[in-house]
């Protein structure tokens, strides 16, 4: 297998982008990534997307985008793994380059969620859950996360306010990200008093419904210097996907994200690293509870101590393990199938020293983790900035 490098990145602002359809969002991100890499063509385009068919009536999306960005003729395919679609597409792109079946691959994540009514988008997101045994009983994606948070608070006797550091940190960091949907600081008081959407989850626990697209360009690492116009080369040190039961009720311990444990620990082994070696972590804070469960499963906090890690200040830009450095899903936004690629783009920004006012002092090894559903598909990438 060949080592794979990321030599181009592109992204659109995240928000309610009613004036741009899926193809235009994809176009903007892909063209930006191609320009960043200095390429005019590619061997393949893989697109992470969850809901284009359900909400937009459009499938065959990758082929549509390939033509729209002037690449008609190349291989193109959409990859779907619910909210982990972006990272799933990333992994397919990595496999294509690593195996030698392609040399230059574009991976994009695209999602449009705001052109539909709330109950339609809610039903769409619920497609990530078990239709026959969860959704048919009235559970929604939000409801399943709310039940996990309720159970966590019950088992570990943690008050709701203990989760405040996560959205507070995300919103603070979003202020330095020109593409973030909600670049405004929030106070702990605002978090505590935010309207409840599904108890105990409130508005400030929840990532927003939004639109957006991001893209990266992958090439073999030994040829990376030919691309990227002199920018720091970012190598993929590990790419691991793992699965769990689709339904929360089928898990022996719903508060342990087994797929996060499996994918992160396999990734550490592949990269020859331990959690202590990770300089920063773009985690999947779709809801505050997911940040906590992810940190615990990945070995950054003992079971039941995830909120304490947040309260310790370790997750801030100047902390020991900065997370959601550009705003995360909570404040940059969570255009579901695009999120996994936004995370990769942001890790590359940090590793290249292009994160502006949010630039970390020490950014050599970055980790990104994209979660599908309530923990059923979890994909971890570790990226390293080459010297």
């Amino acid at each position, binding site marked *: 297998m060949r080592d794979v490098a990321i030599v181009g990145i592109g992204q659109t602002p995240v928000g309610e982008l009613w004036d741009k359809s899926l193809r235009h969002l994809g176009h903007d991100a892909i063209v930006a990534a191609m320009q960043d890499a200095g390429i005019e063509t590619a061997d393949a385009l893989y697109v992470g997307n969850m809901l284009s068919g359900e909400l937009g009536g459009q499938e065959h999306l990758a082929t549509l985008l390939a033509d729209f960005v002037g690449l008609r003729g190349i291989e193109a395919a959409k990859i779907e793994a619910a909210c982990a679609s972006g990272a799933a597409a990333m992994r397919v792109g990595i496999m294509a380059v690593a195996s030698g079946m392609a040399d230059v691959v574009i991976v994009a994540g695209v999602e449009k969620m705001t052109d539909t009514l*709330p*109950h*339609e988008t*809610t*039903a769409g997101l*619920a497609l990530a859950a*078990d239709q*026959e*045994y*969860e*959704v*048919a*009983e*009235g*559970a*929604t994606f*939000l*409801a399943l996360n*709310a*039940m*996990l948070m*309720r*159970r966590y608070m*019950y088992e570990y006797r943690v008050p709701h306010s203990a989760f405040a550091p996560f959205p507070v940190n995300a919103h603070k960091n979003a202020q330095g990200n020109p593409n973030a949907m909600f670049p405004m600081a929030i106070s702990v008081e605002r978090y505590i008093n935010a309207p409840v*959407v*599904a*108890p*105990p*989850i409130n508005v400030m626990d929840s990532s927003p419904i939004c639109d957006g697209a991001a893209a990266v360009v992958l090439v073999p690492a030994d040829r990376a210097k030919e691309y990227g116009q002199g920018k720091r080369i970012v190598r993929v040190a590990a790419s691991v996907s793992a699965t769990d039961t689709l*339904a*929360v*009720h*089928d898990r022996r311990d*719903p508060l342990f994200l087994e797929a996060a444990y499996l994918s992160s620990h396999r990734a550490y082994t592949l990269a020859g690293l331990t959690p202590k070696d990770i300089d920063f972590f773009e985690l999947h804070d779709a809801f505050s509870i997911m940040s906590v469960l992810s940190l615990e499963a990945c070995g950054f906090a003992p079971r039941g101590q995830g909120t304490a890690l947040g309260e310790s200040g370790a997750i801030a830009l100047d902390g020991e393990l900065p997370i959601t450095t550009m705003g995360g899903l909570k404040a940059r936004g969570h255009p579901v199938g695009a999120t996994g690629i936004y995370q990769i783009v942001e890790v590359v920004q940090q590793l290249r020293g292009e994160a502006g006012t949010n630039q970390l002092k020490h950014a050599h090894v970055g980790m990104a983790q994209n979660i599908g559903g309530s923990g059923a598909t979890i994909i971890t990438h570790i990226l390293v900035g080459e010297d």
Partner: protein
Amino acid sequence: MSPHSFTHAEYLAHLQNHVLAASRCQNCGELYLPPRPLCRRCFAQDMRWEELSGRGELVAFTVVHIVPSAMLEAGYDQDRPYVSGLVRLEEGPTISALITGVDAHHPETIRVGSQVRVVFPRGDQDPGPAPLVFEVVSES
């Protein structure tokens, strides 16, 4: 091979007959609700239906105000929310269900650990959008 395929349709048919049924592996004894035809512990395919007591404990819950299309059609909405929960049956398995016998407008009165029992559709009554309903019978 089992004479049944342990499909969702068979499971719903049991509920219609006022039976909450799980599948039990005849090889290793593992019990599955939702039912499965293949044991994920020992990989045997020799399952039998087994009736559960319908008694259990509320493991987690929330109130659903932002309702999906199917529940909207059933009459629930922002102002008429429902309670969704996880129930651990006394036989062991945990399942998602609609929770009744509680006040959806006052979630602070609902307790994790409360005892629940299954409520079957009555007579010819439409079972409603959620086939599996548990009623809270006593607080923890």
